[in-house]
């Protein structure tokens, strides 16, 4: 199963107008965390908040819905959220932490929970992991370099970035510029080349734009914790859902892209293994299902 285990897959979006305006797609990560905070399912969340520099996110502990909203929207650069969890449970004294993570960070958190070495009384305080889809990620300098070079705009003038329809989109006051996503290859960080996970397979609930129409998100509800918060939010009318399109631009595309990411990564893993390089995954010959995320 290339999308990992899930209880339910659906299209969803936040019904809150304010969240719709600021969010990347359906506003699911922002909406769910804000709802979980209101419902006291979590008492704070680690999110990619704003920093002094435009487009450079900083791991932030959000204690209010406003602080969560300030972190809405995708930033296509690294934000080490896991690093902030310790501060969230220590200096901030949180006992039920929500966290937004990309697939690699989700794997890190689950590993931490199954083997809490050096993370005493931290791993057990993570109450909700909202995973986001990720094809690849860029270091801040790479992102700045290729946007200025390929889109020809000053990085400070960018208002929104997006990946969709095979293209990287850059929105500014004056217009929208796009270039093929292929042109960003080579700028992504090295670890992304061996990553087998597109959809945060190990999260409680994952969300992303692939397979969803504009302003909607494709959501996979995976665990009991994810199910509880999602169905409560739907019941409360804060999130609306509609069935995902099974066809070419819906589930089929999501599945295809997830499979492609795995196949490509597996090739690279095998190549690196052959060269004797250290890779944190098994080679395809070592596992039953070559596409499994292990």
């Amino acid at each position, binding site marked *: 199963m290339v999308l990992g285990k899930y209880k339910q897959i659906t299209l969803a979006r936040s019904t809150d107008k304010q969240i719709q305006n600021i969010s990347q797609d359906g506003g699911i990560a922002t909406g769910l965390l804000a709802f979980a905070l209101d419902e006291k399912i979590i008492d704070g969340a680690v999110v990619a908040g704003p920093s002094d520099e435009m487009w450079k996110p900083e791991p932030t502990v959000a204690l209010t819905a406003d602080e969560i909203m300030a972190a809405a929207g995708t930033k296509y650069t690294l934000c080490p959220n896991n690093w902030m969890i310790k501060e969230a449970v220590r*200096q901030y*004294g949180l006992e039920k932490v929500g966290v937004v993570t990309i697939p690699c960070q989700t794997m890190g958190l689950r590993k931490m929970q199954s083997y809490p070495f050096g993370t*005493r009384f931290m791993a057990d305080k993570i109450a909700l992991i909202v995973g986001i889809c990720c094809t690849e990620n860029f270091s801040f300098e790479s992102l700045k370099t290729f946007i200025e070079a390929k889109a020809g705009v000053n990085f400070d003038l960018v208002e929104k970035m997006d990946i969709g329809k095979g293209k990287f989109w850059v929105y500014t006051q004056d217009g929208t510029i796009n270039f093929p996503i292929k042109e960003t290859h080579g700028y992504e960080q090295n670890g992304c080349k061996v990553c087998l996970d597109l959809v945060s397979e190990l999260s409680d609930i994952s969300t992303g734009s692939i397979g969803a129409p504009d302003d909607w998100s494709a959501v996979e509800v995976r665990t009991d914790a994810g199910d509880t918060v999602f169905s409560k939010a739907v019941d409360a009318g804060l999130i609306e859902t509609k069935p995902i399109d099974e066809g070419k631009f819906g589930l089929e595309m999501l599945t295809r892209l997830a499979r492609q990411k795995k196949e490509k990564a597996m090739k690279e893993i095998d190549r690196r293994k052959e060269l004797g390089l250290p890779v944190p995954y098994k080679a395809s010959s070592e596992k039953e299902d070559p596409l499994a995320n292990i």
Partner: protein
Amino acid sequence: MSEKIVISPTSRQEGHAELVMEVDDEGIVTKGRYFSITPVRGLERIVTGKAPETAPVITQRICGVCPIPHTLASVEAMDDSLDIEIPKAGRQLRELLLAAHDINSHCIHHFLIAQDVVPADLMVTAINSVSEIRKNVQYVVDMVGGEGIHPSDVRIGGMAKNLSEVARKRLYARLKALKPKLDAHVELITGLVADKGFPKGLGVTSAPAVASHPTYGDGTNFDVDRFTEILPESWYDDPEIGKRACSTIPLYDGLNVEVGPRARAEVYRGFNERGVVAQHVARAIEMKIALSKIIDILAELDTSAPVLADFDVRGTNKLGIGAIEGPRGMDVHMAQVADGKTQFYSALVPTTWNIPTMGIATEGFHHEFGPHVIRAYDPCLSCATHVIVVDDEDRSVIKNEMVRI
């Protein structure tokens, strides 16, 4: 005719020590000698020549039972050597950390003496009470220190981070709720110690009590000119013991002294009783004092205030003294910093002060009370580097005089 009774190692304490008692025909101790057989510590050597920030990180590893006093004494010594005035909130957090640790450590001691004083039918109650209190105070240590055992957030110049307002309120509520439980625990332990019926005068010595502060510690109250350190050979009149003892003998005004909860109570609170029972009572009362201090600090703490001062790390070679009143007594670290490096470092840990006094305290009573007297001091002969000499050629041990348990 005198007989010699040797307990080696003495049990239910941290580290390894030996108690040698000479007894008369009735079994009464005529001469008691207590000495550390925990081998060499090289931590002071390790930090010399390194950046001052290294010292608190390394010296907190002196012990896993009371790492917090060591960390605090180390940063206080460095603050003093580098002439740093730490922000008020930083100082409050340090005091908060120590008070929480104090309760935790005293609780562990109650666990160690449970076999001596708690009857079988109350054992479960006593142990649950210890666990409940420890869980709550360690929660404070986790949040303020950053880590429950070796705190990562205690820094030269203050603390790494302030608490958040959420954490402050949460801790306040939790610790306030702990108060009745702690009061009941103190009552239980002091009651049980009284019920045990230790003979009157057990463990009483004439050693002067030394303390630097009622609760936290103050380096200015430790006068380095009144302090001398002698080798065990010249303290113990038995040459064999003098040779085997692993710690030096610190003296204040040329006398062996007593440090710890009872010493603090005597110096600052006019508590005049001495001996085993007095030590247990003083220790238990100190838990209440520490808890009320925690609650006060949490009520006052300004969570938006700065906690870390800027400082110049180069130093002027001033001898900095950091004295911290740890659970087992005054812990003094001394440091000199010049050219951005630690030039000199020395740690005088609490039990080292008590070691020469503890043997003497067993005298005059039956030797069966010896271990009770020792445990009343809650000795902690902290973990140390166990040095063995290995022949590099064939990896064999050519000299092995280590303690075998």
